[in-house]
């Protein structure tokens, strides 16, 4: 379970987020939508521990983790992907996914230096599991390629596989379909549903309304760092302020 309470982030005079409350019940998919600059990525950065809030708190499994660094939140079962990618260049696709297992593996510096059998076994099993994960997301054939050889869309999927490799309880997906061809956006929706079906709680920032409406149990709408609506997809779609925020075009037309 992930929740934020009274969250505010100010950059100088600019309020990126103002007094945001958010609860994602376990096992559900919640989407955060809003026009560009609404503060969606800032919200993700605060939740994952990359950005400190000016006020408010972040709760993971009911525990206040606001002061805990990002790597500790990852250890407690929080994983995320990035809108503009944070892949490890110079590594193969498979290695990128194995990095995702960092919190699940145990080899320390001495095991590593001395190449102890326990470390070797763990390493072989991790690679095996990473290969299986890549198979599940349809990238089995590209496992041994350097990440530099993959398309933007494929790298988005590599990031998801890497996040799943940490066996997260909560997964934050930052615009998973941005930059994908229309046909692949549908596949991404399937991937998100499959992840959720395994019990992973998902918080999603997404512009593609078809994907948002089809995968979310619940939607939070932000505009200029403020909550303007929240609720089930059908209710949010009909909300007048939401329609106004999307220039009166209506949600279905807002995204081709």
């Amino acid at each position, binding site marked *: 379970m992930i929740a934020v309470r009274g969250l505010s982030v100010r950059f100088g005079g600019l309020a990126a987020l103002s007094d945001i409350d958010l609860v994602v019940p376990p096992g559900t998919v919640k989407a955060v939508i809003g026009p560009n600059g609404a503060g969606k990525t800032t919200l993700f950065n605060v939740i994952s521990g*990359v950005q400190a809030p000016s006020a408010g708190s972040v709760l993971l499994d009911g525990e206040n983790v606001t002061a805990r660094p990002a790597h500790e939140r990852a250890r407690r079962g929080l994983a995320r992907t990035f809108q503009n990618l944070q*892949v490890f260049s110079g590594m193969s696709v498979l290695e990128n996914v194995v*990095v995702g297992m960092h919190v699940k593996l145990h080899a320390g510096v001495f095991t*590593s230096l*001395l190449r102890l059998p326990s470390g070797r076994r763990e390493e072989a099993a991790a690679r095996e599991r990473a290969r299986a994960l890549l198979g599940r997301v349809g990238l089995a054939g590209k496992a041994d390629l350097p990440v530099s050889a993959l398309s933007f869309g494929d790298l988005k999927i590599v990031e998801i596989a890497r996040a799943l490799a940490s066996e997260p309880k909560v997964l934050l997906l930052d615009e998973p379909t941005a930059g994908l061809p229309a046909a692949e956006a549908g596949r991404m929706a399937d991937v998100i549903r499959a992840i959720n079906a395994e019990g992973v709680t998902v918080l999603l920032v997404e512009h593609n309304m078809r994907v948002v409406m089809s995968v979310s149990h619940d939607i939070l709408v932000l505009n200029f760092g403020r909550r303007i609506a929240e609720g089930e997809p059908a209710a949010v779609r009909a909300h007048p302020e939401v329609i106004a925020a999307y220039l009166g075009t209506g949600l279905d037309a807002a995204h081709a």
Partner: protein
Amino acid sequence: MHAQISATTYRALGILWVLLAALPWIAPNNYWLNLGTLWLTNLLLIASLNLLMGYSGQISLAHGAFYGIGAYVSGVLGAKYGVSPWIGLPVALVATGVVAFAVGWPTLRLRGHYLAMATLGFNAIASVLFVELRDWTGGPNGLVNIPPYTLFGVKLDSDRSFYFLALIAVGIALVLLLNLLDSRTGRALRALSTAEVGAQCMGVDVHRYKILVFVVSAMFAALAGCLYAHHNAFVSPESFDFMVSTMLVVMVALGGTGHWWGAFLGALIYTVLPEVLRSFGDLELLIFGVSLILVLLFFPRGMGGALDLLCAKIAGLRSRGPGAKPPSADARGAGADS
């Protein structure tokens, strides 16, 4: 870009070491053997700095200082207190590790130029201490009478015996380095060097890993220092000043930052070029500097990167040679037949 570490890398290292073991019988005289020993020591320094710079994305202008701390701790223990160099070695490694930890803890929160300046400052402090702790270090005149390593009562002070000692010690160190790079720890280091935020969010305690690699890298430099001190029987402060640290950084870049074999080439240049250029007298530094700029201008990934390009070109030529048909022609042929 990091070259992939694989079983082939270990095998190539093994073959190289077998060839190097033959050097004492091939070398026309001991000058070559000493050059070999010097190359091994430099290789250890540059490869360990490459671990920090190339694979972990940090910079240190204090590698010479850690090299010096290793040399002085083991050297002083041997020369002033009669402690066996075999005891001096672990003491020097631990002492250097502790100092590196103390230096790394605050400075590794800095990045780029700031980290370079902070480590440079530390090297300056170490240089002053090597001179001013006169009672131990012998001051600017240097520390004399450092005893050699002994094995079963035999002094390893001949050029040949020490060459083998260096070959074994550096060989082990390089295998440890390879092991580290090809492990959970090494992967975390390579991850934080390319996408720090991404690594953090995957659970890598970035600051802890930066300190860890800083300490490990410094301890490898200390090992090089011990070898140097007990081979040379004499150490003096200028062997560990900021100029040495700067040259080591340059050699990592020249060999190819983050390229495993780049360190071998960097060490070769660092060892051989001064010997070759010696006859040019004062022009030495000028030629050195200009050739350095030229290499980095045309091969930004260093000589290791240039070597990769060359290998790729040769492989390309071979596949286009008369013996092998291009695959597209085969496909077209098959299409016409059916």
